[in-house]
């Protein structure tokens, strides 16, 4: 799906004031009623406002083969803290660490969805491309699983010919473009100050990713699980947002 340009400003939305440095146009100039509305139930005060820890267990991760890594020879130095050990030369992720990171990532995704942020899914593994696009469509969010042209984030206004709103969150289900190189969007999101969630395998680099989730990114079953979890978290965020907007109108 090619990124769509949003030219019209958001109407009548209760937008919380946040230093969103992503937008290339100051379209978010709505009146913020943050001070009048309940600061007593500020979702940011809760460690897990959307109860994302209920979405999965370590056993679910285990059965979806999330703990399988590549061979020792392709290990990235920065992934060593997340590895439990190696079995006959094949690396195994520590699912307790993975579970913590995944909970943080899901919580963040839910909060972004609660605030009406645009989420973009990335995946460059042809085996799972269709699944990711379908999940993004079902979420009501965006996906980019094709060839990435250089300046989509960094030169957006010029490339799309109009003022562009960039995503507020990038979820990488596969941070590698091919075996040899990382996806350009990881670096570009960091440049444009877009937070990223990324599933990092043992041959990937977690350095530029805001919320890395160490785990398997090659098996379709694992990707299905991640998609399901992100979809559920985003749905919870959006549902809470709808409820909030209805209460105020």
């Amino acid at each position, binding site marked *: 799906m090619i990124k769509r340009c949003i030219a019209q400003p958001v109407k009548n939305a209760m937008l919380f004031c946040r230093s969103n440095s992503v937008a290339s146009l100051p379209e978010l100039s709505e009146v913020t009623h943050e001070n009048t509305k309940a600061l007593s139930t500020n979702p940011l005060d809760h460690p897990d406002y959307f109860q994302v820890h209920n979405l999965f267990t370590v056993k679910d991760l285990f059965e979806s083969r999330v703990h*399988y890594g590549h061979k020792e020879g392709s*290990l990235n130095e920065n992934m060593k803290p997340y590895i439990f050990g190696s079995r006959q030369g094949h*690396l195994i992720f520590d699912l307790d660490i993975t579970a913590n990171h995944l909970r943080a990532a899901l919580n963040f995704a839910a909060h972004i969805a609660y605030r009406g942020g645009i989420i973009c899914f990335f995946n460059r593994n042809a085996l799972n491309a269709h699944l990711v696009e379908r999940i993004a469509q079902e979420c009501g969010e965006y996906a980019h699983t094709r060839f990435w042209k250089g300046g989509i984030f960094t030169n957006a206004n010029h490339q799309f010919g109009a003022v562009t709103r960039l995503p507020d969150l990038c979820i990488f289900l596969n941070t590698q473009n091919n075996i040899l190189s990382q996806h350009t969007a990881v670096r570009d999101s960091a440049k444009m100050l877009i937070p990223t969630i990324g599933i990092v395998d043992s041959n990937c680099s977690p350095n530029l990713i805001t919320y890395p989730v160490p785990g398997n990114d090659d098996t379709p079953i694992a990707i299905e699980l991640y998609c399901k979890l992100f979809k559920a978290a985003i749905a919870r965020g959006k549902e809470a947002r709808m409820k909030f907007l209805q209460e105020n109108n």
Partner: protein
Amino acid sequence: MFGSVRMCSNIRRSIIFKNQRNLCSSMRLFNTDATGVEDASTKMGGFAKSYDKQSQLFKEEPEQKQTFESLLRNSKLMDLGDPVDKIVTGKIFHVVEDDLYIDFGWKFHCVCTRPTTRGEEYVRGARVRLQIKDLELSQRFLGSTTDLTLLEADCKLLGIIYSPVQSSVSEKST
């Protein structure tokens, strides 16, 4: 680089875990016997008492939260040992003319060519027997810092276990 997983400590931990469970279950049995004896007013006969005990036995296993270590220790991957030349079952999930993409529960799938014997039975959904040659086709080439992976396992196709295609003669493959 990495040494192997600390198998000894894991085995010890799982044995301790098992022993603790046995101890707990035997303690609970003892308790149910005691409560049965105290209930003299109902005057339960021999069969009723044993039925009570048996039903308690089945009820006493709540969903034990398994740790990742115990899950890993009891997984099929550990049962495999050295994966080379082990026989596993796989399921065909994709077919491209003569190439069969087979998933056998590992991180990667393997791709095998359709055999000439009983070739038409190898369709999507068929269960096959495989012999693992290599779990991941990756190699360090001269001049590179990391391995190059093919993102595939390498297996030898032995034969068919079950095929959705109806076959008139069903014979076991050796």
